[in-house]
């Protein structure tokens, strides 16, 4: 996985705010908002995929960043 890939919130409506993704993120790229998970600092994302692999609700997805 190239480092230019970034996390994306694929299905924001499915988030149940359990906070597991925030705890596993090694670079604090995510944060919990009022309605669900939000991206806090996209630049710090290293596309390790920890969040999308552990998310029980299929909310997050790591995608290829074209820019």
């Amino acid at each position: 996985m190239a480092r230019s890939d970034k996390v994306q919130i694929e299905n924001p409506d499915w988030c149940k705010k359990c906070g597991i993704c925030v705890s596993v993120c090694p670079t604090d790229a995510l944060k919990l908002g009022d309605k669900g998970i939000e991206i806090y600092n996209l630049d710090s994302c290293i596309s390790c995929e920890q969040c999308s692999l552990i998310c029980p609700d299929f909310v997050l997805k790591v995608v290829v960043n074209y820019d």
Partner: protein
Amino acid sequence: MDIYKYLRKEKLPHIWCPGCGHGTILNSFVRAFDKSGLNQDKTVVISGIGCSGRATGYLNFDSLHTTHGRAIAFATGVKMANPELNVIVMTGDGDGAAIGGNHLIHAARRNIDLTVILFNNQIYGMTGGQFSPMTPEGANATTAPYGNIDRNFDLCQLTKAAGATFTARGATFNPRQLTNIIKKALLHKGFSFVESFTQCPVRYGKLNQTADPVDMLKLQKQKTADIKKWLQFSDEEKEIIYPLGVLNEEINPENEYTFRYQKIIEKTLEKGVL
């Protein structure tokens, strides 16, 4: 990797509680299935009753949601009727180890080519938090308010002793390893058993002072170790820590049940019995 093609998106979000690890196992399963290269149209997913029973409803495969504990019995029927199918069973600790415990050991004894993924949340979550055969000794449940006095099964040892040719254990805190384990189990010819620890923050957690799913994952990490590390532990440590990874694998496709059954069919056809 497009995992969403394996999911019935119209059925999501699922009904599992916030922080429930069952979704993580489902997530690992769809990734493992994608990596295994198996045909989605030639796969049947079967589940019983309980929280884990909901899994088949969210998967875009041919699926069966069966009676309590009987998922493996239905799966055996499907596999015998059409041995070409990949048959996967999703069961829970109450469904697979308690009510369906006999089906589990006998399917293992026959070494029939099923992949059983057991969601071990250590409690009967859906029915209100009664203790299951996998509830740890001393843990609280609604039917054990002063602590559970039952000893629990080591399901990997149990199925191995019964004859399973692939046994492995994973945990939701390490989805990468869980995905690899499930992929190997899917490709194994013979009875493959995968036990996965999963957190139940709402039922188990609230009764045991760990209602935060993140804390439960940390506890899971403390109570488990990779099999390579685990083998170097002292005997006392081995009793309290569970090994993770592929624990047992025997490669002998000719020992598989439907293969042996096919041999009998051929033999009877030769003799002109049928």
